């Protein structure tokens, strides 16, 4: 049953790419994602894959390369972080609107400034409205598993959208941990070949890609793109169900941890979910009814499902590892709170901005968040909803 290994998150992604053997990788190095193209270029040099590796001079060109390759009918991948993702910005929207199922390994790192190389989600959170599907990972295993599922989701004919697989820079990308890999033949069977219906190099049915659309057509193109994101929800669950048959590992839009009878809950993304699970375990041993929800799929956003999972809880803290400078909370907070608007009974809800620029998040930090949720539950008042966790004022 699988291959027992110990790998960093970056190694896990590089090995997933090796097993998948995509047609093209266009990449430019940036900390902390550099190791992914670095390892992968060794596989190319050693003849372990027959991918065309295109070393470019910027991330703008890396994404342009992927767009060109994908439009031509190839399976294209890249990896980046922080300022690298920011430099791809213009092209992220081009890829999504041209309906090119490119796969991007995003190793989350704070945006400048101050200049910082460590983890937060400001890079991919900023890209959440560019039309990419976004999958987030708690650890190396989930980064690997999400990458194996990414192409099946994005390349589905009902979807045809690019997919970003995110993991926390350094925290998981550079930490060696146990992992269970799938045998390469099983990966190839599961992921399959990319056979697009239409592509630039298909001479029987010429298409144009990246055309100009006047006001008479633009909104229809956007509506179709929005429908693809709606369709992705069903496809994500179908792919997860098939993945579970192959690996025994279960995935959905989010993971519910000790939520059944929970009265206080946190909603969190990425590696902090693992730390928070330890806090929940400890507090459960003390008889406290706490639980957590870890978001895996941020785009499309699982609004109804989240509302159902949270409506019975008394108080909730939504954890944002990114600012959005709205002056009233982070991006995940805004969306989770909005998701509960239609519920007849709703929990009291607060927001914690935490872990920016790699600020370490401990079990004690999470316990503190739960303690404040208990106070809120007891008093019946949320108080200030826009809060920072572990900041020096």
């Amino acid at each position, binding site marked *: 049953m699988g291959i027992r290994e*110990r790998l960093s998150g970056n190694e896990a992604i590089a090995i997933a790419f090796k097993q998948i053997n995509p047609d093209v990788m266009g990449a430019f190095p940036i900390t*902390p994602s550099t190791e992914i193209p670095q390892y992968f270029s060794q596989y190319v040099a050693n003849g372990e894959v027959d991918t065309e590796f295109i070393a470019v001079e910027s991330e703008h060109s890396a994404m342009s390369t992927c767009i060109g390759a994908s439009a031509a009918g190839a399976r294209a991948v890249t990896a980046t972080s922080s300022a690298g993702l920011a430099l791809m910005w213009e092209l992220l929207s081009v890829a999504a609107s041209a309906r090119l199922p490119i796969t991007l390994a995003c190793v989350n790192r704070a945006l400048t400034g101050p200049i910082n*190389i*460590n983890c937060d989600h400001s890079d991919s959170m900023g890209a959440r409205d560019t039309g990419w599907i976004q999958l987030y990972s*708690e*650890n190396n295993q989930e980064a690997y598993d999400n990458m194996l599922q990414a192409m099946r989701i994005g390349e589905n004919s009902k979807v045809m959208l690019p997919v970003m697989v995110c993991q*926390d820079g*350094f*925290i*998981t990308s*550079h*930490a*060696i*941990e*146990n992992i269970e890999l799938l045998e390469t033949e099983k990966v190839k069977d599961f992921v399959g070949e990319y056979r697009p219906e239409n592509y630039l190099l298909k001479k029987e049915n010429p298409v144009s890609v990246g055309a100009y659309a006047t006001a008479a057509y633009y909104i229809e193109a956007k509506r179709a793109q929005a429908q693809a994101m709606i369709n992705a929800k069903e496809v994500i669950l179908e792919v997860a169900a098939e993945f579970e048959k192959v690996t025994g590992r279960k995935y959905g839009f989010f993971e519910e941890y000790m939520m059944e009878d929970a009265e206080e809950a946190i909603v969190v993304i990425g*590696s*902090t979910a*693992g*730390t928070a*699970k*330890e806090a929940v*375990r*400890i507090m459960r041993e003390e008889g406290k009814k706490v639980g957590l929800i870890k978001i895996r799929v941020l785009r499309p956003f699982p609004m109804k499902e989240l509302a159902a999972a949270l409506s019975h809880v008394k108080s909730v803290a939504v954890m944002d590892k990114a600012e959005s400078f709205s002056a009233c909370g982070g991006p995940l907070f805004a969306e989770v709170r909005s998701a509960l608007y239609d519920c007849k009974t709703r929990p009291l809800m607060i927001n914690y901005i935490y872990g920016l620029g*790699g600020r*370490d*998040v*401990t*079990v004690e930090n999470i316990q503190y968040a739960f303690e404040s949720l208990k106070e809120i539950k007891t008093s019946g008042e949320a108080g200030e909803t826009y809060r920072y966790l572990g900041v020096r004022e």
Partner: protein
Amino acid sequence: MREIVEIRWHGRGGQGAKTAALLLADAAFNTGKFVQGFPEYGPERMGAPITAYNRISNEKITVHSNIYYPDYVVVVDESLIDAVDVTGGLKEGGAIIINSTRKPAEIRKELKGYSGRVCTLDARKISEEELGSNFPNTPMLGAVVKVSGVVDADEFLKDMEGSFKNKFATKPQVIEGNMKALERSMEEVVIE
């Protein structure tokens, strides 16, 4: 509470503290454990203080924070005792293992009243005699295995021989030196 052994490494950039933490993770992994091995990343450069960490357990580990209350601390460079709070949060039931020519009793005076076990090893001497130059991380790895017992000593040596054979396939002459460095460090570490 689940049993997780937590180890914090203090070294200077370029001395191999990170590599040693990853080697320990490997060795524990190879004996069937769940492991984490990770450095604390910042703007490191040669000679600057660096920290690396290990968690080792029989069960899956989910925590992804740094380690503030370690069971064991390894100090690869003695000069860090003045510069860094090496015993910060160290459990009294644990131990600190320091690369030094001095005896534990002498170093203990500098450890801010730490009352747990203090261990020293002349890793430089062992490294220079067995490996021909100063690579303190291999002897320190042997010492931490001996002191912590986190991995069975015989299994550890057998496993390390296997990975040295793999790593130094083209330089078999250094395998014996590395093995001797490990064995000697496990015998020579002074525990008080």
